[in-house]
């Protein structure tokens, strides 16, 4: 029972962090119509930036500003230099982002090194919860993730840029005719997508390891969330991420983590084949 609670709780919190990263993937997928194979590595760059900030300034908290900022700039730059020129050829974008993924991983391996490292929990200690001593930082991480996801939806629904992003996704030609600078919206969207993954990396860094291969596992998980939630359905994506990680946590209490992963993948195949519009169609919007 204690184990079940612990794993379900870990899954839930991990799901909130994944939701943050998957939202970044979903806006890139939905708006630019490209499969971004480097998205897992955007997360990984976030964990490394957290580590680098801690090393150079001694403060982990500064990473919450540094990582999204650097991520945003890198994302905007990547969109401008690589994604923009090939925007109309979706197959090429897969090759380009695959190449980008290798470049990011290898650059981190050169600078950070090949051995995985750990960041000590910035809020040490545990607190008793339902008979289990639960790590305080994980609860803090959950709160931060919820705040950031909420903030993102506020931004999307209540700011001019957010409205532009939704408009361009909905109908690009009309949006352009209405005077929305679509080109700039693409650049900003890619930057925001990277920033969301990077800040997810900072939140996750004390829980997981800092490793140049850290994104390899995250990428399929984010795609599962995007698909199960429904392409273009952002609240659905966030809900699917939490649901998936929670279910995987529960399955892990009775079986191998790999079995849990197989179960999610089978669920995803079923959704793709039976409800390609996603599980939550009709639930939102």
């Amino acid at each position, binding site marked *: 029972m204690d184990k079940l609670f612990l794993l379900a709780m870990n899954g839930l919190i991990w799901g909130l962090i994944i939701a943050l990263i998957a939202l970044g993937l979903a806006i890139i997928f939905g708006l630019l119509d490209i499969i971004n194979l480097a998205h897992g590595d955007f997360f990984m760059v976030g964990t490394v930036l957290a580590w680098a900030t801690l090393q150079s300034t001694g403060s982990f908290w500064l990473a919450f500003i540094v990582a999204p900022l650097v991520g945003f700039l890198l994302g905007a730059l990547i969109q401008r230099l690589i994604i923009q020129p090939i925007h109309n050829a979706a*197959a090429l974008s*897969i090759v380009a982002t*695959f190449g980008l*993924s290798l470049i990011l991983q290898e650059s981190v*391996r050169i600078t950070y090194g090949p051995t995985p490292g750990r960041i000590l929990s910035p809020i040490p200690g545990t607190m008793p919860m339902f008979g289990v001593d639960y790590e305080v930082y994980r609860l803090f991480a959950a709160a931060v993730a919820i705040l950031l996801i909420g903030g993102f939806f506020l931004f999307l629904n209540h700011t001019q840029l957010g409205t532009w992003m939704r408009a361009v996704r909905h109908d690009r030609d009309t949006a352009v005719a209405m005077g929305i600078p679509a080109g700039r919206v693409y650049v900003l969207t890619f930057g925001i997508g990277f920033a969301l993954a990077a800040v997810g990396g900072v939140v996750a860094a004390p829980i997981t390891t800092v490793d140049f291969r850290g994104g390899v596992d995250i990428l*399929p998980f984010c795609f599962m969330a995007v698909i199960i939630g429904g392409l273009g359905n952002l609240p659905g994506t966030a809900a699917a991420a939490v649901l998936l990680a929670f279910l995987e946590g529960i399955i892990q209490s009775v079986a191998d983590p*790999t079995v849990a*992963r197989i179960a999610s*993948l089978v669920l995803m*195949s079923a959704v793709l084949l039976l409800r390609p519009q996603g599980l939550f169609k009709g639930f939102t919007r």
Partner: protein
Amino acid sequence: MSAATIERSLWVVLAAFMIAVPWLIPALINSFWVSVIAEILIWSLFAASVNLLFGYVGLLSFGQALYFGFGMYGVAIGIQDFHLSFWPAFGLGIVASMAMAFLTGIFAVRLTWHYFAIITVVFSLIFYFLALTNKWLTGGDDGINFSLPPTFNVGGFNKSLTDSTFQYFFILVTVTFCLWLMQRLIASPLGKALVAIRDNDVRASLIGLNVYRLRLIAFVLAGFLAGVAGALFAFFGRYASASYMFYHVSGEAVVWAIVGGAGTLLGPLVGTTLFIIVREVVSTHWEHHSLIVGAVAVLVVLFAPKGVVGSWNDWIARIAERAEAPSVTAKLRTDP
């Protein structure tokens, strides 16, 4: 020199080079490179399976490693557990991958574009994780090592792949035969129907083509190519491992095929050659060769979006055009 002459002489040079490799390469560099070239041939065949689907049917599969892995495991399990000899094990690998392609294809080809790419990678991940957990059968990440049975053992004539020259020619002949089959397929009415689906699937179905069945046939044939490649690679390395079923392996084949030139017969061969040579040359001097692989992928996409062979074909076409209509170009040039 006309375009056709350039192409024909290149084919002759390529064929002569491929046949001379076991003697030429050890004399020029060293015998290690003979096995590198054999490996390039195997991976080219794997990239060709991506190309058959993407370049000729318009379906981007991100899960071809699944059928590569089934080819590998068919051979390894056939030899290790069922004590099969060479050819039955080879056959088992090919049949296993085609059967798997048929079973997954039934579902996968119902979807197109993004959804197709994702469902193929999902299927391959499911079996990757299954292979990792069922260590009793697959050996997991460590894989299965086996010893090679003889390829031919007829009345005192005994040949096995342990003879490296024989191994090279066995791989060369098998890969050439498969690429020849693919060439025949593309030139056949079936191939024309596939290209029609690639160009416009709605129109193809309106002229009476059964789009679903044709896509499924192409998917199984691509599974065949990937399966042969996997079986060859198992014989080549004398082992099979779950790690070859991971999505990175599929992704590399996609990159090789598109960088070389999707929709061209030799594109995957050129792309694979380019990347494996970069890997082999750079990795001996610098461990971060992936950086160069990534950079090459990005640069080709930006500056030669049709791939190396696609750009080459454009260039040849331009030469042919100029040869046909020299007066026009001459007149254009004299204009101030």
